[in-house]
């Protein structure tokens, strides 16, 4: 410990030195668009389930109506939650992963993120298969750019889930 260091520390008592940060925010470097794609699949699935749900007719029993309400409520709650998860995952990629250099190479990123967030909101507010599909498409397009920035090619294949929608996957070497 040098004399000047002790002097600087002593000066801190009179007037604290401002802090120069060597970094802030932990740049953990761990990102993956799969969370957003998965959440979008769930939203699509929930809309499908809601549309397949048989509505109780005039002659339905109270038990049938209760059963219907219970199922519908659960599907809607899950749709709400996963629309928000998808939006949040896209925000994380946008805010923390993508850099100005990426936007220069892929100028469509702006529009895609905007589309994902808007269709995510719409999918949440309404029972709209179109909005859910738009959300999934936007997350797929973002995933495709994400993997390109990582130096991986992608393949588009049917997802192995009940939604069976086309999904972008990285081709790991």
């Amino acid at each position: 410990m040098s004399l000047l260091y002790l002097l600087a520390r002593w000066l801190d008592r009179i007037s604290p030195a401002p802090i120069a940060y060597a970094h802030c925010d932990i740049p953990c470097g761990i990102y993956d668009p799969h969370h957003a794609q998965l959440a979008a699949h769930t939203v699509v699935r929930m809309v499908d389930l809601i549309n397949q749900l048989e509505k109780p007719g005039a002659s339905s029993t109270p038990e049938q109506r209760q059963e219907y309400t219970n199922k519908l409520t659960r599907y809607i709650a899950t749709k709400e939650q996963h629309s928000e998860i998808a939006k949040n995952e896209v925000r994380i990629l946008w805010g923390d992963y993508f850099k100005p250099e990426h936007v220069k190479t892929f100028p469509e990123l702006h529009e895609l993120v905007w589309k994902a967030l808007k269709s995510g909101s719409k999918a949440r507010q309404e029972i709209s298969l179109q909005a859910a599909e738009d959300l999934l498409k936007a997350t797929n397009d973002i995933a495709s750019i994400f993997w390109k920035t990582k130096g991986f090619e992608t393949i588009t294949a049917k997802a192995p889930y009940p939604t069976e929608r086309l999904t972008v996957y990285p081709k790991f070497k």
Partner: protein
Amino acid sequence: MFPLRRFRIEDDSMRPVLEPGDYVLVNRWAYKFRPPVKGDLVVVRDPETPERFLVKRVSDLPDATQIRVAGDNADRSRDSRSFGPIPLREIVGKVWIRLR
């Protein structure tokens, strides 16, 4: 304007040159008559939070009015890779000596 200003270091993207808890004396006149050069240690205003200061190394000079900065430990550093180049006027000064 007095040329020297002292800063206390926090965080570890500049290890081992600067450790958390070190003090640095910064020369605010260093770039009055000559531009920064690659490799200089500088204190700059954080482009994303102007009331904060960052200490980084000049990694590139894209033109006469801007610098790019980087931490010595790339994987632990938020720098020009995320916030882009920094205008020269945002440089507080060049690190003159380190006190430890």
